[in-house]
């Protein structure tokens, strides 16, 4: 390492060109990263067994709630001028190539009875000119189970124009969805609604596009805050702007390199990926701080600039590599997961952490060597000088209160255990969206029309199966059961269609709204229905059918419980019908996978925790050291769950990332303290134990506190995110990092003293962990 640094300094003027070129190239690639929030990113991955059924379903029936919806609210949607507007908007949107079809009051074709005649065809063959004509149309519409909550609200005050995309919105790109929304908004701008009508654009594509935009805005807002916080901390620490600029230059380089790799992996920045830059910057800045501090120490001791650079980097390269590797291993624990968004997060941050080490041992010494004037010799010492004695005095205080410390730690662990037992994995689709107009419109859509959570009972059998009486009866049973569920806004199937046609052929009597008894009549009715309308429910050969259940979003737990109940009823209803039943749809597959991601993160945390503990055992050649390292790191984990309880939040995808982040931060201080204590025991076997423990605390405490402050404030910036989940994550990170430090400062010394430090001395100092020292004032 020493020779490498010397060579780096010697050829610094050439290397700097390579560095700048790499920045330009990395910046170019990184600029091509796209932000994207799509629900399907959580579940559309190779090998997901649910995808073939979902794709088959989409091929047959499209996306039942994938419309751009124009909600037109007024005191009466059936006033002639309002219907005229609906017609004008419908006709204006019909030619837009991105849409497959536009459904509205002026395009629907309900079957109804008028006297003895059966009336089919358009609800409004011509626009009503009189109030009585409009009222007649309203009476038909609000009585039709296929129109209420889909096209018209139950009270007839609001109506919806549904613009269905050619590519089902669930599988279309964000750009396609954005184009579709723009087309609708453009048309609304060209033809504003009449007085008394409020037009609102909403629907699932609006949620995804708005969330994507919010993600980008979040990045643009949070990054400057993260940098501002770090600059402030670094300036306070080093009392120099250059002291802030140098570590940041190193870390920005690593972040740019990492983002370039991320871009080459062709991944968009999604909800989880949006944490990557913050994670990398906050984690990446720690090592350069240590190296810079060591460099300043050397300079103060009177070493030459080149010697100080070579010595500080070569001394800290291996310890920093070790802590970086433990962090990388923690994130790499997510690589085996099949879910791309989590896997890429794990891979990217693991690579980024290693690259941060690379820039610490290359870019930082390069810049130190290039700078014409050294930093003030006193810079960086103020922090450790002031805090080291405090840490030294902490030891006797702790020793005299060890029972209280252990009881407190035990209480926190027990409380955390209790908190963990009360938390469940519950994800949201709508409530994951930042509060604001989009969320409000979705709430409005859920209240008056359909929800955006799609649960589908997809039936498959031989051609003609779906007209068999027992199959239709099963569909009716499932449909009725679904409609009885409190979360369900609409449940529609071919049975509803048949009931409406049958009612029309029975003079419009409500008693006629029943399933026809004979297969022949079913076939005859079905042949009367326009293929476009029939195709929403059953395929041409009647081999496949769907029951489209749309529901409000109250989180994955209640939705999944509802889905489980529907699945149970559907299984029982279809038993013996020779028809295969699948529960599919975005709400089924998406929520299942989101919950699984959260569980995977918790599991990954446990695996990484165990792996790092094992690594500690190997490095220290002591299983006791591994056991000692576990306890103080369980305390912040317990704290995580307590924060969740305090915020009345369940474990979700966006806050479970906390466990990924925590893996990288935990253990470092523990490892450094144990290493330092054992090193002192080896160096000064005759000195009193109390003195050695105080010295270890004074050495490890200041940099650990600085690291904890950097990490907690850095990640705490996420509290300023627009996303509720990320706000929680920010708070959890801040609390965990500080709690982790407190646990290490209080528990680790006592455990080390009781189980490691006082009774054993290390035969060989583990060079790998001795080095993360900001300053040793009492020894110099």
């Amino acid at each position: 390492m020493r020779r490498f640094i010397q060579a780096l300094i010697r050829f610094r003027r050439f290397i700097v060109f390579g560095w700048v070129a790499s920045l330009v190239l990395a910046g170019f690639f990184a600029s091509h990263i796209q932000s994207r929030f799509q629900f399907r990113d959580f579940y559309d991955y190779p090998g997901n067994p649910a995808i073939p059924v979902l794709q088959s379903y989409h091929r047959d029936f499209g996306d039942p709630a994938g419309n751009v919806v124009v909600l037109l609210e007024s005191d009466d949607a059936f006033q002639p001028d309002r219907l005229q507007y609906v017609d004008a908007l419908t006709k204006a949107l019909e030619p837009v190539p991105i849409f497959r079809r536009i459904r509205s009051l002026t395009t629907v074709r309900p079957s109804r009875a008028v006297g003895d005649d059966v009336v089919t065809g358009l609800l409004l063959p011509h626009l009503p000119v009189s109030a009585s004509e409009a009222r007649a149309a309203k009476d038909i519409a609000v009585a039709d189970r296929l129109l209420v909550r889909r096209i018209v609200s139950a009270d007839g005050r609001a109506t919806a124009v549904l613009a269905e995309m050619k590519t089902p919105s669930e599988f279309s790109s964000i750009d396609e969805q954005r184009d579709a929304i723009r087309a609708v908004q453009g048309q609304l701008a060209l033809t504003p609604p009449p007085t008394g009508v409020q037009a609102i654009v909403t629907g699932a594509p609006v949620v995804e596009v708005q969330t994507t935009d919010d993600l980008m805005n979040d990045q643009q807002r949070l990054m400057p805050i993260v940098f501002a916080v770090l600059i402030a901390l670094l300036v306070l620490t080093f009392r120099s702007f250059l002291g802030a600029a140098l570590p940041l230059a190193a870390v920005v380089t690593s972040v740019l390199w990492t983002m370039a790799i991320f871009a080459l992996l062709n991944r968009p920045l999604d909800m989880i990926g949006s944490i990557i830059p913050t994670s990398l910057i906050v984690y990446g800045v720690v090592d350069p701080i240590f190296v810079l501090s060591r460099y300043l120490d050397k300079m103060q001791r009177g070493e030459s600039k080149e010697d100080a650079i070579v010595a500080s980097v070569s001394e800290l390269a291996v310890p920093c590599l070790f802590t970086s590797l433990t962090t990388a291993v923690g994130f790499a624990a997510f690589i085996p997961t099949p879910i791309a968004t989590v896997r890429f997060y794990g891979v990217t941050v693991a690579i980024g952490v290693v690259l941060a080490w690379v820039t610490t041992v290359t870019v930082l010494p390069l810049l130190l060597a290039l700078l014409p004037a050294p930093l003030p010799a006193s810079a960086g010492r103020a922090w450790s000088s002031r805090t080291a004695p405090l840490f030294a005095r902490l030891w006797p205080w702790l020793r005299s209160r060890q029972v209280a410390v252990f009881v407190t730690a035990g209480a926190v662990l027990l409380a955390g255990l209790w908190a963990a037992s009360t938390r469940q994995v519950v994800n949201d689709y709508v409530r994951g969206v930042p509060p604001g107009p989009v969320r409000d419109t979705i709430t409005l859509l859920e209240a008056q029309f359909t929800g955006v959570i799609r649960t589908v009972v997809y039936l498959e059998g031989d051609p003609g199966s779906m007209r068999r009486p027992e199959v239709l009866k099963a569909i009716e049973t499932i449909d009725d059961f679904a409609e009885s569920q409190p979360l369900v806004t609409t449940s529609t199937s071919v049975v509803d269609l048949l009931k409406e046609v049958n009612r029309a052929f029975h003079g419009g009597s409500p008693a006629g709204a029943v399933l026809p008894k004979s297969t022949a009549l079913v076939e005859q009715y079905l042949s009367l229905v326009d293929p476009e309308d029939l195709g929403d429910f059953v395929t041409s050969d009647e081999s496949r059918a769907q029951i489209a259940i749309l529901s409000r979003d109250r989180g994955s737990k209640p939705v999944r419980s509802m889905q489980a109940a529907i699945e149970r009823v559907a299984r029982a209803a279809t038993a013996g019908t020779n028809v295969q039943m699948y529960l599919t749809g975005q709400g089924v597959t998406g929520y299942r996978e989101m919950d699984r991601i959260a569980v995977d993160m918790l599991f990954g945390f446990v695996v990484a925790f165990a792996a790092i503990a094992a690594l500690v055992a190997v490095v220290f050649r002591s299983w006791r050291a591994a056991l000692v390292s576990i306890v103080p790191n369980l305390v912040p984990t317990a704290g995580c769950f307590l924060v969740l309880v305090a915020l009345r939040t369940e474990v979700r995808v966006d806050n479970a990332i906390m466990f990924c982040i925590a893996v990288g931060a935990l253990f470092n201080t523990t490892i450094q303290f144990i290493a330092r204590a054992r090193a002192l025991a080896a160096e000064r076997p005759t000195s009193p134990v109390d003195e050695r423990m105080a010295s270890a605390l004074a050495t490890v405490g200041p940099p650990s506190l600085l690291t904890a402050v950097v990490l907690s404030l850095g990640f705490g910036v996420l509290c300023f995110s627009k996303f509720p989940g990320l706000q929680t994550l920010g708070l959890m990170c801040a609390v965990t990092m500080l709690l982790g430090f407190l646990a290490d400062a209080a528990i680790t010394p006592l455990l080390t003293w009781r189980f490691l430090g006082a009774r054993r001395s290390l035969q060989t100092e583990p060079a790998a962990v001795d080095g993360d020292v900001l300053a040793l004032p009492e020894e110099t």
Partner: protein
Amino acid sequence: MSERRRFIARVMVVGLLATIVRSPSEAQAAGSAEEIVRRLLASDPFGFNDATIDAHLVVVDRTGSKRSLAFRAISRRYAPPESETLLRFSAPPDMAGAGFLQIEHRDADDDRYLFLPELGRSRRIAGSLRSSAFMGTDFAFADLDRRDLREGIDTLLPDVSVAQYACHVVQVVPTRSDSPYSRIVVYVRPDNGVPLKMEMFDRAQVLAKTFDARELRRVDGVWYIVSSRMTNHPLQHTTELVIDQVASTQAASDDLFSVRNLEKP
């Protein structure tokens, strides 16, 4: 005869032959758009005027699923060009016996009655059906009643070839408000007035459907399209219409086209 004279004679003969060959086409091309459409309406390519046909339909959806229907249709031109048609389904088995009666009117909406054997009686089907599909196929009622052709505004477009046959091309803009189409472009064979192709554009001027004649057969002096396909572009659906048998029925009785007869399975 010198070589030069022989050459001039050959050129003159070829020129004369060319004139003779081109003459009929040019004479037909000189006909107005209205005349071409009138000839089209006078022809009975689907056997829906004065014929009895046995036919079957195959509907294929975008996933490749198929559904078949078979029927016999008896028609009579009772007040040319208006006609009445009785259609009785024979397949699939569940549709057997179902009947449909349509009586076209010049100045009023057509009468349509549907008989479903399971219900035991017929019902008059009212409402704006013209944009609706006929018995779940890709043929709309508007395609069958030909009102848009009868009442539209016609414009002659340059001739083109369809399947190697020169065709007159007429654009018809429907005048009825209940038409599902903004315009129909018809490609008509000059010699027999049979449409080889029709393109229907929806109200948004987007190509909605294409009708392609695939096989023509002359029976009793009338050209029938015995195999054709209607493609519904937005739905990615097609309907094949195959006329299995066709016979001229000049003398069908009036009683045949009554509701009472419709209700006889």
